[in-house]
């Protein structure tokens, strides 16, 4: 009896080890409280205006050993834009810019991930803003892994990239009033599921 039990236990242990090795791709959910989308844009060729969105929210599948299994499926609530000026926020939410009533979310869905360094990768994906989808490639860094207050595993990702707002139909207030190039920083803290 003991022998058969230890045989069974050994098999189970071996199987779990094999399975855990094969299933290194871990699923994460973005923690919007500890994640940020920050952007800046040139104003009148003078200073820079900064703004934020809440989030992003969404799912990440991350496999450090096989990045081809890594996926990012993120979205940002358009209505959450904040530039520390209520009138400007309303303008940005209106039809001239993000058109929040028609397009309540901005989304990013990765289509391929390529390793570029120990903790860095090039993530190519579809960025949808104002209903217009363009393929973008961003350089993403895995910024670290830690343990949360409840023992959960948290992993950070960060990227910085630029887009041309005209590619997404945002042509109001043309340069030099508002620069065409928007610099965006996305910092995500994701909780392992």
């Amino acid at each position, binding site marked *: 009896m003991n022998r058969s039990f230890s045989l069974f236990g050994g098999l189970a242990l071996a199987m779990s080890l094999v399975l855990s090795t094969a299933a290194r791709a871990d699923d994460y959910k973005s923690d919007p409280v500890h994640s940020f989308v920050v952007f800046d844009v040139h104003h009148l060729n003078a200073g820079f205006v900064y703004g934020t969105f809440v989030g992003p929210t969404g799912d990440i599948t991350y496999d450090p050993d096989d990045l081809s299994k890594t996926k990012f499926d993120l979205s940002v609530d358009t209505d959450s834009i904040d530039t520390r*000026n209520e009138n400007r926020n309303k303008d940005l939410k209106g*039809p001239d810019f993000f058109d929040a009533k*028609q397009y309540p979310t901005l989304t990013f869905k990765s289509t391929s991930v390529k390793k570029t360094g120990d903790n860095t990768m090039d993530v190519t994906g579809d960025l949808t803003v104002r209903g*217009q989808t363009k393929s973008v490639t961003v350089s993403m860094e895995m910024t670290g892994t830690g343990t949360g207050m409840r023992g959960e595993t948290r992993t950070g990702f960060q990227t910085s990239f630029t887009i041309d707002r005209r590619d997404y139909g945002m042509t109001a207030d043309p340069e030099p009033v508002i620069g065409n190039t928007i610099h965006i920083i996305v910092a995500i803290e994701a909780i392992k599921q």
Partner: protein
Amino acid sequence: MPFTASQILTGMVLPAALLGIIGLLVWRPWKRDAVKDFRWIFGPLTAGAFGIAYWTFEPKPGWPPIGNVVYLLFYFALVAGILSLADAILKPPLWLRAGVLLLAWRLAVRLLLASQVPRNISETSAELWIDFLSAAVLTWWLTFENFAERAPGVTTPLLLAAVAGVSMILLLMDLHIQSSGALAGGLTGLSIAAAVLGFCNSRIAFSRGLAQTVVLILLLVLVHGYFYTDDDLTPGREIRAGILLATPLLAFSGDLAPVRRLRPPLRLAVRAIPVVLALAFVAVWAAREYARADQAAPAMQDE
């Protein structure tokens, strides 16, 4: 400055110049005795000129028009141009014209509101809005067509220019939508160009052509602005929009019994003056509110 000089030239001046030049070449107002009825040209011409304005200020329209509701403004302008052309050539009875126009309008408004139902507007509210806006478009259309039919020449395009100009002010200052304001500005330019034509020859007719096309496009631009602005629709803004919408009703003052006895030019003045006064009131009120908010803005930033 919200628009570049090149945008203003391409989106406002060029369409107006095209309408004016082509209208001039077709109508030849200097040949006063030999004027044929070329009003059919104004439907497609207005729609085409508006298309240039749209192309300047809005995203390139995709097909089918489901990616962005703003595409509807472009396609509906084409429909309005074709409807006006059919009205001018086929001369259908009024009830048939109104019926077809309402069908096209209701479809356009339904599609325009679709992305907000049921998220921001319930289905019942949307239906009520569509009915209300159908009544509004019918009133505007009847008023301006009536004007254009009874008084060819400069009067109708001048009134249209005033309505489109005030719409531009409301879209820019009340609803804070530059692109929609620019489109209304484009329609103002087209109406002014037509007014110049009408001034050159008072026999140039704008019914079944320019008046109908401008009214249909302008109202849809206003509806889009009203439903898609992210600015708070304060009571003041609602009242100003309501007055603008009701303004054409004032033109029916010319049908009051005592006014009917007046000579046609006086009767026309009785029709036009209340409309212009109401529009001026709305424009001045909106501009004052805008200036007040602009002055308050730095204080808010300091906070």
